[in-house]
Structure formats: structure tokens, C-alpha cells
């Protein structure tokens, strides 16, 4: 039972890291709280549902598609919203309200077009590409996909494992972007000191726009797996997802995208252990954890600077 909870916690935790990392990138670079983060997750989930129901292919293919779509959406939104916001008196506070408005618009538009009913994807749809390849190369029966995968003697749904692996890949790519590319180096410069980066001639707007687009893209990719990890999604799913993302991000440390990976895994393990042993208290966990972390170590587990009034 404990082994099951721990492994499931790590799998969920890796996925949760992916859920939070986009939010953290946006906050780290722009000091803007994207309260619509969960709604982009929700839209990503609907992209996956659309791909499965309309084209009938593995939703894994929706991941790059969703990333590109929301990268472009993010760049456009950035140029519409952010420069005006940054010019106001208190951008950090007003961004909370602005993006709350955006989240309302997204939820309303999705509801108008798709209704409020719960939607899900049969979990066998995810990873069909692997079973097809396996059948082509090694023979065997085609219906083995979607079955449980054994780790340490316990069976876990294949969709959890695929989501965790995809998350690892995505986090790895974020790392490569931040530490191996020129734009990534500039991004880190803006994260550590915005005004000094501006003074040295870095095009802060371009860097921020890229970070915003990537942040939304990552949220959408995380959303692809939401129907498998949470069972089903509705247009109202976004608000809960935002709060969970915050718990994860703050746990890791706000403003340090790679800390989110650690925060996600810790969150996932705590969540699964509490759910196994004290299930009625599991809902309380993220919030209590969030408050204690903020009060005891506001900079998060890997943070550098403490931000207290």
C-alpha cells in the first residue's frame, strides 16, 4: 500500500510539475500572476478531446499541436495585455484581477460553445501509437495497449506513466531552453533583475513575450493529460487547476521554474499518501501546505530571495 502510494505519488508529482511549470515561468519573468493558467490547461484538455473524437488518433499527437497553438496565442495575448498592464501603478496586484477576467472569458466562451457537461476520453486511447508500433515490430495482439504497467510489483494505468514521462521530457526541454540557448540565458537575466537586464540592452519585451507563450504552451500540454489524470474535465475545471498549480509552484519556489519539479513531486507524494491513509483530509492538504510554506519559507524550498513586507 505504501509502495503503491509512493510510486503513484511520484508519477502524479511529475505530472503536477508540468502543470505548475508554465505558471512559474510567467511569474518568474514578468512578476505577473496568471490566474487564467488553469483555463489554458482546460483548453488543452479540449484540444485532446477534439483530436480523439474528430480525427481518432492518439492524443499524444495533440501535445506538439497544442503547444504550438498556445505559444502563438500567448504571444498575441502578451502584446495585447501586458505592456498596458506594466505601465499601471501596481502591475502585480492588477495582474491578478486582469487574468481573473481573462479566465472568466475563457470559461464563458468554452461553456457557450461546448456546454457544461463532463467530458472524458477512454484511457486506452492514450498510447495507442506505442501498441501499434509494438504490434508492427514484434507481433502480438493489438489490444494490449492501455493495460496496467508494472512498477515495483504494482500495476499502474499506462496513461499515468505516459503522462509522467512526457512531463519529464517537457521539463528537460525547459531546462535546455533556459540553460543552453541564447534566449534562455536572456530569460534568466530578466528573471534575476528586470531593470538591470533592461539597462544592459536586453529586449525585455521580446524575452517576456517568449516566456509567456512558452508558459501557456506548457499549460496546454499539461491539459492534454488532464482527462486521463483527473477522469474528466468541464469548462469550470480551470479554477481548481489554478489553485493546485499555485500550491505546487509556491512549494518549489515562486520564480524558479526548475524548483517546480521538486515541488510537484513532493506535492504528488504527500497527496497520494494522505489520500491512501486519511482520504477525507486529502482535499485540505494543498491549502494547508501552501500557507505553511508561505509563512515559514516564503521563498519556497529552493528560493534565493525572501519577499516579505
Amino acid at each position, binding site marked *: 500500500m505504501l509502495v503503491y502510494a509512493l510510486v503513484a505519488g511520484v508519477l502524479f508529482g511529475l505530472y503536477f510539475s508540468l502543470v505548475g511549470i508554465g505558471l512559474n515561468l510567467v511569474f518568474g519573468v514578468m512578476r505577473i500572476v496568471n490566474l487564467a493558467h488553469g483555463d489554458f490547461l482546460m483548453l488543452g484538455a479540449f484540444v485532446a478531446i477534439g483530436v480523439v473524437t474528430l480525427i481518432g488518433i492518439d492524443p499524444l499527437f495533440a501535445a506538439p499541436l497544442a503547444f504550438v497553438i498556445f505559444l502563438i496565442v500567448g504571444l498575441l495575448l502578451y502584446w495585447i495585455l501586458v505592456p*498596458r498592464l506594466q505601465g499601471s501603478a501596481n502591475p502585480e496586484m492588477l495582474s491578478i484581477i*486582469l487574468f481573473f*477576467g481573462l479566465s472568466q472569458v475563457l470559461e464563458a*466562451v468554452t461553456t*457557450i460553445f461546448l456546454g457544461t457537461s463532463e467530458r472524458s476520453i477512454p484511457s486506452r486511447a492514450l498510447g495507442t501509437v506505442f501498441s501499434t508500433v509494438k504490434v508492427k515490430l514484434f507481433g502480438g495482439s493489438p489490444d494490449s495497449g492501455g493495460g496496467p504497467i508494472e512498477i515495483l510489483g504494482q500495476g499502474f494505468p499506462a496513461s499515468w506513466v505516459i503522462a509522467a514521462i512526457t512531463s519529464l521530457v517537457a521539463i528537460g526541454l525547459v531546462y535546455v531552453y533556459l540553460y543552453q540557448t541564447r534566449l534562455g540565458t536572456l530569460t534568466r537575466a530578466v528573471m534575476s533583475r528586470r531593470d538591470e537586464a533592461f539597462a544592459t540592452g536586453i529586449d525585455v519585451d521580446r524575452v517576456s513575450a517568449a516566456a509567456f507563450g512558452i508558459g501557456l504552451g506548457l499549460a496546454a500540454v499539461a491539459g492534454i493529460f488532464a482527462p486521463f489524470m483527473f477522469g474528466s474535465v468541464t469548462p469550470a475545471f480551470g479554477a481548481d487547476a489554478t*489553485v493546485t498549480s*499555485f500550491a505546487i509552484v509556491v512549494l518549489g519556489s515562486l520564480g524558479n521554474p526548475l524548483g517546480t519539479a521538486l515541488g510537484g513531486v513532493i506535492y504528488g507524494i504527500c497527496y497520494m499518501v494522505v489520500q491512501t491513509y486519511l482520504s477525507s483530509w486529502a482535499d485540505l492538504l494543498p491549502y494547508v501546505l*501552501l500557507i505553511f510554506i*508561505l*509563512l515559514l519559507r516564503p521563498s519556497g524550498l529552493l528560493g534565493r530571495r525572501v519577499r516579505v513586507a
Partner: protein
Amino acid sequence: MPSALKHTLFIALPVLVIFAALPGVYQNHLLLFNFVIFLILAQGVNIIYGFTGYLPFGYVGFFGAGAYGFAVLVMHLHAPAIPAVLAAGLVGVVLGLLLTPLLRLSGAYFAIANLAASLAVLHLIANPALEQITRGPYGVSLSATFNPTYAYAAALVVLALTLGSVVFLKNSRSGLALQAVREDAVSASMAGVNVVRMRVIAWLASALVAGLAGGVYAWYVSVFYPDNVFSGEFSIFAIVFALFGGVASITGPIVGVVILYGIYNLIGFTTPQYFQLIYGLLIIGLVLFLPAGLVSLATRRGWHVP
């Protein structure tokens, strides 16, 4: 005439008189009651956000805790309604005291922690393990105290108290000190303002107001579930109404509630998703083009708006 008296006579009193008279001519009393509740909550947000700059994103936590404070007293101690409402205010203040450490956080950190705190209180109360005390997720039914007429009157009393404290803040040295702290805490403390004490007082005052409002709400509706009284809409609506009108003023939140909640009731009930769309666009437009609220249209022209 001193300006505090002027504000009381020409802003607070007319609002109270209008809402005291309206039930006689307008049939939808629940709607009027909700208007009063949102006037209280928007002014409560005004006290903490307008005067100190802390954005209480989980403001509903005090409201819901107040409602459940009222419910627990009525269910288990068979208390009459008025002491139970006072106890609801006390519950709000106690929760506020418990959460005072949050004031150490700044900016977005405070807003997020406050949101988390309100959700933690919700999940604590809605926990099936506490069914003996709070009835958990199954909701409470308080038929013993049911009396909408008195509850409406009590709501007006709470509104009077709230408007009174905003008028006081607007016209007193303490209010000025709070605004100084909001603009620049270090300079304010150099000028002799006790920053921590001022912030805590404003925080507890807005918690008290929301707790009382929650108690009155529980009295009025008498049947409710945790999700009703802890609905994030209360926090969000109160914040947006206050901001739309303009915070750190007396009239701003009143104007915001009357206009936005009015629109909500015109189109919100039949097609909630269209209201949500308009509402979201309105918020975006507000932040981008009018971040200081409707009153800033007048103050920009040099008119004085109380």
C-alpha cells in the same frame, strides 16, 4: 460642516434610507438583501484593500466562517439570532487573528495565501469527519431562527456599521496613516505611524464586517451548504465591485455594486455564461483602461469625490 458629518448625511444615510424603504415598494426581497450583503462586502474589501493595499483574494473565508459560526451556535446552543450574529462577527475576528501572520507576506503572495486560507477553512468545515459539529458537506438548516424581515433589518445595521467605519477612515488621522502605509511603509513608520498595529486593525475590521455579514446571511437564507457560503464568487464579486467603482473612497464601492450587480441581475440569471463573458471582458477593460475605478473619471477632471 465637518466633512465626516457631510459624508454621513449625504452618502451613508441616503443609502441606508433607500434600502430600508425599498422592501415596501419592490417585491424581490432576496435581491435587495443580496444588494445589501454585497454593499457590506465591497466596503469590507475597501477597508483592507483600499486603505492598506492588501488584496484579500480569500475574503469569503470570513464570510463563510461567520455563517457557520451563526449556524453552530443556533444548532448546538439554541442561541437566539442576534447573539448568534454577534458571535459570527467574533468568529470572523478570531479567524482574522489566526491569519494575521499572512500580513507579513506582500503583493501576490498575500493574495494567494489568503485564497488558500479560505479554501482550507471551506474544506475543514465541509469535511465529513466533522459531521457532528458542522454537518459536513450536507449543509445546515436553521428553521428555528428563520425570520427574513428581522434578518434584513440586521443586514442594514451591519451596513450602517460598515459605512460608518469607512467614513471614519476617510476622515480620520488613522485612515490617513493607513493610506500613508500603503504608499510607502518605511516612510510612514519614519513619520511615527505604527505600521503593524494599523495594518492589523484594518485587517480585523474588515474580517469583523465579513463575519457579521456571514452571520446575517445565514440568518436570512437559513438553509445552505458549505459551497454556497464559501463560494469564491463572494470574494471576487466584492473585489471587482469595489475596484470598478474605485477603492479608498466611500462612494466608489457603492457605485460599483449598484451598477455591476444590477447588470448581473438583468442578464445573469437567464444566461449565466453570457454574463460571465461580459463580466470578464469588463474586468479586462477595467484593469487596462481604468485601473483606478469609475471615480477616477471624476478625479482626473479635478473634482473631489468622497
